[in-house]
């Protein structure tokens, strides 16, 4: 793991200047210190268009949209610092690894790729996400995994190592959400808030530990994960553990619950056509 470099002096606003870019071996290094997101992302897109496959962005301090709309399965981006909102929104292929925390909207409407955050993340992760994987090490906020959907070979997967707040998996239409409740700063609190899976009409949520029925939306059925379920889940957990430097055996010590929707058409009977 590369050593994280944080800003050494206080940052007074962002500057509309192109960031400093240098090449170290096969790594393109971009120093984003105090650079406005627009210029930073232009530099990232420019480097990728120029053939860079491995990028390291240093001194990131809340700049938005890193990796947004970026394509290329063989592109790898390291983000050192705190990634701003909408990290990897609409991304289509690359791998983005954050050595720090991420803010809101990670993986928003994402198509494909991998996002690994070695820290906590904010609200509304994976909104409308259609493919790829998001692995968060620690806690996440509200409305995480909202309206995730699957289509043919595209199946989004998100694994959260810590706790999650209310509306986890709201409107979920496809894909898989996994909540471990392990790497949390809120160990004295329930591992997930209320309205879990409310409006859910597709996909699967796995919870390591327990949830009460009152925490869940009325559309959600709760069952213990079967052997077949664990056979589906374990390779994903193994991949997550490898990415986050955790032991699979520790994760598997506690049994999982599987949450699925009662119906793919929760509102089919609500309406009376005139």
């Amino acid at each position, binding site marked *: 793991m590369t050593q994280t470099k944080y800003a050494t002096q206080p940052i007074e606003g962002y500057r509309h200047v192109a960031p400093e870019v240098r090449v170290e071996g096969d790594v393109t290094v971009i120093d984003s210190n105090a650079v406005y*997101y*627009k210029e930073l*992302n232009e530099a990232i897109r420019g480097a990728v268009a120029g053939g860079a496959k491995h990028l390291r962005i240093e001194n990131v301090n809340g700049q*938005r*949209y890193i990796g*947004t*709309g970026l*394509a290329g399965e063989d592109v790898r981006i390291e983000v050192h610092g705190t990634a701003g*909102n*909408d990290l990897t*929104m*609409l*991304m*289509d292929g690359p791998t983005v690894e954050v050595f720090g925390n991420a803010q*809101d*909207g990670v993986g*928003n*409407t994402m*198509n494909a790729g991998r996002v690994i955050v070695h820290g906590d993340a904010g609200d*509304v992760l994976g*909104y*409308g996400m*259609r493919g790829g994987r998001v692995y968060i090490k620690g806690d996440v906020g509200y*409305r995480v995994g*909202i*309206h995730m*959907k*699957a*289509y043919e070979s*595209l199946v989004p997967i998100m694994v959260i190592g810590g706790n999650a707040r209310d509306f986890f998996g*709201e*409107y979920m*239409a*496809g894909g898989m959400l996994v909540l471990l409740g392990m790497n949390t700063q809120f160990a004295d609190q329930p591992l997930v808030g209320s309205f879990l899976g409310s*409006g859910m*009409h*597709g996909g699967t949520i796995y919870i390591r530990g327990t949830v009460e029925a009152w925490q869940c939306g009325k559309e959600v059925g709760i069952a213990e994960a079967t052997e077949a379920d664990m056979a589906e889940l374990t390779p994903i957990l193994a991949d997550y553990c490898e990415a986050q430097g955790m032991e699979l055996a520790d994760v598997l010590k506690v049994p999982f619950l599987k949450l699925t929707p009662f119906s*793919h*058409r*929760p*509102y*089919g*009977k*609500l*309406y*009376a*056509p*005139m």
Partner: protein
Amino acid sequence: MPTSLIQPEFLVKIDYDKCHKCGRCVQQCGWGVYSFNERPIPDDSKCRACHRCVTYCPAHCISIEKNPLAYRDNDNWSSDARKAIWRQAETGGVLLTSMGNPKPYQRIFDHLVLDACQVTNPSIDPLREPMELRTYLGSKPDSVQVESDSNGGFKLAEGAGMHNNIKLDTPIIFSPMSYGSVSLNVHKSLAMAATRLGTLMNTGEGGLHADLYPYQDNVIVQVASGRFGVSPDYLNRGAAIEIKIGQGAKPGIGGHLPGEKINKEVSSTRMIPQGTDAISPAPHHDIYSIEDLRQLIYALKEASGYKPVGVKIAAVHNVAAIASGIVRAGADYVYLDGFKAGTGATPQVIRDNIGIPIEIAIAVVDQRLRDEGIRNKASIIAAGSIRSSADVAKAIALGADVVAIGSASLMALGCHLCQSCHTGCCSWGITTQKPELTRRIDPEWGAERLVNLVHAWSHEVQEILGALGVNAVESLRGSRERLRAIGLDEQTCKILGVKPAGM
């Protein structure tokens, strides 16, 4: 007891003396009104008065009449109110309907008249003199830069802040209607017509079918709360991107395309499995404030190489303040949808009771943006029952840059306004996915009719401009002095910024 207390709304009458017994009515009706036993036998209770059979009957022997005995007269308890109560007593459901608000609210456009030149200021003959309808959709610079051309004159400086504008040959565009709510042949008709007219069609929230890629330079791609079909490729294909917050026929509520309409093709453009409901949540869950809206606008710009991004909202009470926020958030246009706008499916109570008239919304938004000195930052698109070229001209005089037509364009394709789109059985092949019905619209035929309609309206707008003595639609924009009100109350006139006739 009968299964329903609701009596047929229409009576289907066939003059059997004239009838050829050809069976065409049986085949044409999308709702299965007719059975055939030596001659066609109608079931009145299924009829929606879409007039498909009437139009196609070779003997002209079908007539459809309102059932005169269905409801006893009562001005307070209208037949609609009683029908609704019975339907809800039977089902316990939220009443689902479609198309636009049919209630007899005041139609402000019909109370506005335009000016003309007489004696002191000559009118212009649009047949012989140039009459410019070209309109630029997008954010305009605070000031225009010019540079000298090589002939000792001046020209607009390179870019001049206009590079992100879309050039339209007419101020009329097609409004968003998703593939799924309408058929692919309708989408193709609209896309082909938009390309030929030098204007725009709009995908609505259902994604862009590959068959429309050849027309993508004339397509606005929409991003709604369900994010259906939204991918980097989709955003990069459109001429502009539109964030849909609301629509006039159902302000404040989400969309819901029932699983039956999600066939293989629809599922491929929406990128969701077949047969599941396509649910658009009421809000975008990444937008809870103007700051969040700004974040999404710039995310879409970042993902698309800084294409123009517009925001569509339903016209509601506080529309001026909301529009101001949208413009400040960085939108290139604000799309205002009035409360008479059409839709493929909406709860009746929402359609008929929520939102404000488009005329009011245009006037207050235009005024607010002018007062705040940001009118140039964004264009205004107005929609929600634009019924004629007169409505186009009046909307522009009230302050719109561009109008969008949805219901009118479907009428050009044969829609008879039967308000049954939500059934998915449209006999005219418009709001349906059934192959035996969708093939009724040939895109080439559809495109031609749409081109004819917009050409006709554009010529009429030119006639109006000529009468007004101006030679460009730009000169009419926000020119409320050229409007007068007849029979509007003082407060409404004030809000519209229009004087009563005679003043």
